[in-house]
């Protein structure tokens, strides 16, 4: 698939670079859609305060449906670009759920930049563990996540919820 390239002593598959590119483009698009378009801003309003959004006349149900569809499509794309490099099996998604939640919790809810940071932290901490201390590879992600949450309970880019009395 697309050949290989040499980086220092290591060989990488060009396909992997392609996957990184696709992820970057989609992430950028998502960020733009959420923060720079009217619909995206309405969506953010729904996320932040459902009751207030209903009061302002936003169709919350439609936005939930939209969010769910976008989320599903993103999941599908991720599966599709990963599939060529792995062996596809029915249980393939189970492990990804936990990783995805860890990324979200580290980055903070509702932040595209946070998701990027969370994903990089998860990926790099795993890779570091694999190179330096393979014994802890199994739970290094959870260790890092716990540390981040101890320091920042709302995740790196999450905002504390407003106090509601």
């Amino acid at each position, binding site marked *: 698939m697309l050949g290989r390239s040499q980086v220092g002593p290591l060989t990488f*598959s060009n396909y*992997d670079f392609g996957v990184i590119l696709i992820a970057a483009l989609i992430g950028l698009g998502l960020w733009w859609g959420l923060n720079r378009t009217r619909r995206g801003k309405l969506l953010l309003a729904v996320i932040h305060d459902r009751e207030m959004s209903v009061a302002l006349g936003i169709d919350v149900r439609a936005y939930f449906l939209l969010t769910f569809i976008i989320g599903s499509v993103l999941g599908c794309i991720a599966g599709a670009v990963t599939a060529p490099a*792995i*062996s596809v099996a029915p249980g393939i998604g189970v492990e990804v759920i936990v990783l995805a939640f860890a990324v979200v919790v580290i980055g903070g809810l509702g932040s595209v930049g946070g998701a990027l940071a969370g994903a990089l932290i998860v990926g790099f901490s795993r*890779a570091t563990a694999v*190179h330096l201390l393979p014994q802890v590879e*199994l739970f290094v992600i959870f260790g890092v996540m716990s540390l981040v949450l101890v320091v920042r309970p709302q995740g790196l880019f999450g905002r504390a919820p407003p106090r509601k009395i």
Partner: protein
Amino acid sequence: MKIIKRTGWFAGVILVIAGLLCAPSAWAAENGKLRLGIVTFLSGPASGPFGVPAENAAKLTIAALNAGKMPAPYAMKGINGVEIETVVVDEAGGATKQVEEFRNLVERQKVDAVIGYISSGDCLAVAPVAEELKALTVFFDCGTPRIFEDASYKYVFRTGPIATTDNIGAARYILDTSPNTKSFAGINQNYAWGQDSWNDFKAAMQVLLPQAQVKTEQFPKLGAGQYGAELSAILVENPDIVHSSFWGGDMEALVLQGAARGLFDKRSVVLTCGETGMFRLAEQMPEGAIIGGRGPYGVFAPDNPLNAWFRKEYQAAYNTPPTYPSYKIVQAILGLKNAAEKAGSAPGKLPDTDAIIAKFRDRASRHRADWWRWASARPIRRCRASPMAPSIARARTRHRRSSTSGVIRRNA
């Protein structure tokens, strides 16, 4: 009064449910057949490479036995002339679940014997329960050396070799084929099977090739599917040999990703379970990979009428050649059949469990099933461009001459 009426109604529902629950035990009435429980992975990651091939082979063999069509010396109908009926159970769900299902199998479904279990954890958990229930149980695959070595059982048998031999065999093969090996590394799944495999291989290498250094030992999670970081770690270290006891989807992913990253370009990769994937991955399997079949099974099985019959029938029925799990379960079935038939009952009658066990144990020390004859076993070998090519049969091999073999074993 309303409450009492409703409580009565509620109690009625519970009674009906209780009645339904007790019903299945009545179905398992004596019908003159031998009821055999077959437990193997029908779902989950282990079903594709192990569970389903084993189940297919069991179905085929039992149908042939019931029809009396097996080649000699297994031509007698069923087991000692008694027809076999099977109860198939999925092995998925973990050891706790399997203990529960084993009890159901024996106490609710009233099977006469159980053949099964691929996962070592399941075998470890099920063995004491089999003993408690006095249920004749034959493990056909699980490779941990902790079942009969840590305890002793009367009702439990295992008809396959343990994993230690695979890895010592692999080290010996490397000693024979590349004695100049300077370094080696391992990538194994992070669970008991992977850890034991790597430790055995490493220990064997350190004795056989003391000059070879361990470069890195990677233990990605079972079922991880993505090995980018591990591959980088191995490629940076640049070892001569890479050892892996991966199986199923993980092995497939490792082969695909490893090929893309040049893992196989300058070094030999030992896949101790590689045989399960050799037909499925015929196109992708790298040139020169060393694959193992966990004993004299599959393409390593000797050429004789029984094997020829089995390969032909299996290929015809399932459109792929049989791999080692298929062979191993057939060995368990034939082992049980052999013991039962030697137990001295008149044909058409089933000997009692104790008599079968006595003979089974006796077989353990003397019996050699024909096609597993050890002298011709070729459990590890190097893979040429296509594993199907006839030239493969002439590939240089070194078999493990040490003790264990395809002999029916107990208290190893």
